[in-house]
């Protein structure tokens, strides 16, 4: 086993022990004793529970806060997240979930009952991460106490025998001055940011005990505490955020109030009065696409831009251009450009000549590159019977044996392909219905001029009259943009906590924690210098550092006596086996 990684920390209690170092080496390899954690103090998780309810609870608590449990919970969390990516999640895409349920019958129902379509809010997923965080808190609290005490404590005593430690070097220095040597050792170590403690020992010896890298544990605690903070901020955000979708046609406006939203959701503590009173009009929406002859897939989008005139509370009206990745921020809300489509202007007159529908109609893109979009128009006021117009809008249209479809997303040759139905639209039944859907199975199709069923094909400016005198006209074309408006007051705090966690993590992973000892004993005609170190984390540089300290000290001592020898007495360790390059770092 690697000596560096197994040199376990001694428990804080043991640091007062004169032979703390030796004890450290004795615990070496004691399976599972992992540094400075309270468990090592003999309240190990495997200890048999004491009798009674209290004892059992205590036992369970220790189990829960043990490192092993944390490890298992982490793995469980990873595994539990997997189905969340394999099954369509309601919170992400409810349509896909419904399709899956339809296609999978009984199996789908079972999965649904088990929460596989809401993995991240399912009881089992929540249970795992809540347990993990309880475990985490139970783990942090005692460690903070231990660590605070350690920060105030002086470096532990120098072990009586240094021979077993990393880089142990012994040099006889005839004529050397004991106190001078110790003082320069202390100075050098202190300058390298060690905390030092000089102690007189038996037999006229004196030693410096030095310690460095307590920041490692500080960083580790900071990291774990910041993780708790991240979780709290996420929970806070879920309770206070809001998010809604709006669609705005070119030339139209929007002002921020609940009634204006197509859909809206918010956390339990959200307060409607906190919504900022901002308004805007969509002046223009532009899109560009890959044209034939350009590289890339023809029809693939190249840019989307929405020009808006926005007025935030207490500010002048201002022109802004929103793009994907370029949201609008006003105090208390952000607005994101997330979608777009076409709104053909359609006028419908019923057989009595009354205008029953007029103006731009939002169509829903069906997801093909060409932006073939679905048209659903309901005219409940039409007489003698209610009318529904359904069909397609095609920015660059064609009708062939595949039916009506669009070849290119830009409005190069805009067309409508429509069918008109009459009958009871069922809008009075009290069941809320989707504006973009209509059930035509109970309706009858209105025939064309000669009375036969007809698919009306309209270009801008055209009008068509049906057999019963109903007319449909295509007056013009506008575009619309779809925006999300959202606000999460905890967002910034989530970010700050996450960055704090990273800072702690970096300290915790890359600051080596180590001890270095220098002892000087009176020798036959001068002094005997001993230097050794103990790594308490992966610390490949320790050996080199200890040896060079020995060299520096013996060089500094009046160099007149050639023949002095540093005799490394360490057992051959990995670092020396390794390679000359390895130890030269």
């Amino acid at each position, binding site marked *: 086993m690697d000596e560096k*990684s197994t040199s376990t920390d001694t428990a804080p209690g043991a640091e007062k022990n004169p032979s703390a170092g030796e004890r450290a080496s004795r615990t070496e390899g004691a399976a599972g004793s*992992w540094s400075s954690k309270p468990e090592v103090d003999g309240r190990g998780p495997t200890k048999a529970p004491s009798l009674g309810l209290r004892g059992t609870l205590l036992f369970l608590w220790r189990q829960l806060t043990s490192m092993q449990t944390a490890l298992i919970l982490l793995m469980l969390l990873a595994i539990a997240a997997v189905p969340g990516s394999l099954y369509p999640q309601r919170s992400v895409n409810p349509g896909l979930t419904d399709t899956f349920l339809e296609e999978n019958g009984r199996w789908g129902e079972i999965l649904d009952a088990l929460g596989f379509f809401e993995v991240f809010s399912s009881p089992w997923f929540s249970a795992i991460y809540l347990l993990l965080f309880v475990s985490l808190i139970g783990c942090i609290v005692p460690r903070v106490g231990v660590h605070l005490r350690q920060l105030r404590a002086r470096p532990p005593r120098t072990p009586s025998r240094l021979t077993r430690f990393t880089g142990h070097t012994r040099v006889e220095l005839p004529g050397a001055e004991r106190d001078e040597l110790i003082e320069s050792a202390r100075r050098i170590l202190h300058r390298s940011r060690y905390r030092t403690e000089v102690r007189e020992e038996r037999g006229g010896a004196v030693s410096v005990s030095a310690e460095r890298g307590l920041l490692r544990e500080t960083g580790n605690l900071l990291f774990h505490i910041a993780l708790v903070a991240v979780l709290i901020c996420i929970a806070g955000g879920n309770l206070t955020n809001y998010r809604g979708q709006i669609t705005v046609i070119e030339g139209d406006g929007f002002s921020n109030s609940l009634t204006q939203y197509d859909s809206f959701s918010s956390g339990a503590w959200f307060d409607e009065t906190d919504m900022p009173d901002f308004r805007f009009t969509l002046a223009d929406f532009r899109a560009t696409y890959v044209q034939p002859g350009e590289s890339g897939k023809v029809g693939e989008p190249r840019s989307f831009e929405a020009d808006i005139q926005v007025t935030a509370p207490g500010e002048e009206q201002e022109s802004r251009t929103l793009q*994907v*990745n370029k949201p609008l921020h006003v105090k208390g809300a952000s607005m994101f450009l997330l979608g777009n489509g076409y709104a053909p202007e359609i006028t419908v007159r019923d057989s009595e000549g009354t205008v029953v529908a007029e103006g731009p109609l939002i169509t829903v893109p069906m997801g093909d590159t060409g932006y073939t979009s679905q048209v659903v128009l309901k005219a409940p006021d039409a007489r003698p019977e209610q009318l529904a117009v359904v069909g397609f809008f095609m920015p660059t249209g064609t009708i062939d044996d595949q039916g009506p479809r669009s070849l290119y997303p830009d409005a190069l040759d805009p067309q409508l392909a429509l069918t008109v139905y009459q009958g009871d639209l069922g809008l009075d039944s009290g069941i809320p219905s989707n504006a973009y859907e209509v059930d035509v199975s109970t309706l009858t199709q209105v025939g064309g001029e000669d009375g036969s069923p007809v698919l009306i094909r309209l270009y801008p400016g055209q009008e068509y009259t049906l057999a019963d005198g109903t007319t449909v006209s295509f007056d013009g074309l506008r575009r619309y943009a779809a925006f999300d408006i959202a606000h999460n007051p905890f967002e910034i705090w989530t970010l700050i906590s996450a960055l704090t966690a990273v800072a702690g993590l970096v300290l915790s992973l890359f600051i080596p924690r180590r001890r270095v000892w220098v002892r000087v004993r009176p020798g036959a005609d001068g002094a005997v210098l001993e230097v050794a170190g103990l790594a308490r984390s992966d610390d490949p540089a320790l050996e080199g550092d200890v040896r060079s300290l020995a*060299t520096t000290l013996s060089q500094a001592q009046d160099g007149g006596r050639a023949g002095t020898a540093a*005799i490394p007495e360490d057992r051959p360790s990995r670092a020396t086996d390794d390679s000359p390059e390895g*130890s*030269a770092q």
Partner: protein
Amino acid sequence: MINEQLAEFSNLALVVAIVLFVLALIGFGADLAGTSQRRSDERLAAKDRAEKGRADARELQAASVGADGAGAVGSDVSGADVPETDVTEISASDAAAVDVVAADAIPGDGTGSASGGMSAQRFAYLLAGAATALLTLGVVCRALATQRVPWANMYEFATTSAAVVMIAFLAFSLQRRELRGLGTFVVGPVLILLLLAQTVWIVPAAALTPSLQNSHWLYIHISVAIMATALSILGAVVASLQLLQAKHESGLAQKIAAGEEHPEHWGRFGHVMDRLPSSSVLESLSFRIHSIAFVTWTFTLIFGAIWARDAWGRFWGWDPKEVWTFIIWIIYAAYLHARATGGFRGSRAAGLALAGFVAVVFNYTIVNTVINGLHSYSGL
């Protein structure tokens, strides 16, 4: 506008780089095979010499401390900084002597074993360097041809990652020569990655889709993700070797315990393993790579969240790509914990590191192509 000629040149550079990588792989392989010819008693003899050599080296060091001490009369103590000087550097000639002894004794270094001329390893190392240079050139040309960063689809992500893995490996092993023995195991996976990119994921050079435009997070988030992926690849290579080496070592130890004088384990492959660093050296290397990888993944996650917030209005939405990055992060966190938990150190922890890598691969292949999510930028 796309510069088609430059894009074609980039493709050509990549194809030639692949050919060079194949040659480098053959070179590294030949180097390993060459070593495996030696019989185990030779190894033992070499070890004996190594022991002796090390003892000599130690005397040299010891002497040099004294000698230098003598030379440094009255030198200023405060001028010397503890961590910087090192015993083996005290005198150039002594250090060189140590180096020579070490070079022929240490099994990890192939340069000493060549019988004149260039060793297979050195040859392979140089070839790999040339291939990496060409690969990097190809990636840079792709960037110039499209006038943007070359990270917009799976093909570009894969080729850039491959370049980063190779550069990291070459840089690591420039100083630590014993790591060059790992060449086969690094060039192999890189070659697989490049071949997949060149055959399955390749797409013509094109401009960015709107969802990738207008955002400096493209540069930040994706470059960090590429680094994280590259480090995960390297980490997985080292962790797998660590597992094999641990098995091999315990196999040898059993034979020695059974009293065999010239223990053999896993035949020729065993000899290859003998060339590689010990499992504990590999373990600590794997840990160092994985800890950097973990920090990089953490940044990937955070920067991705910031970008998602700008692009989609929420910083986290359990999109499949987000889920899998989260899973990767959690598994690597578990790995770091495992190293500090009794009963999980060593091989079991390495198993977790490899599980993390499986998640990385899944995230890159299946999630990008099969699972339907917002991160549909594979370009396929």
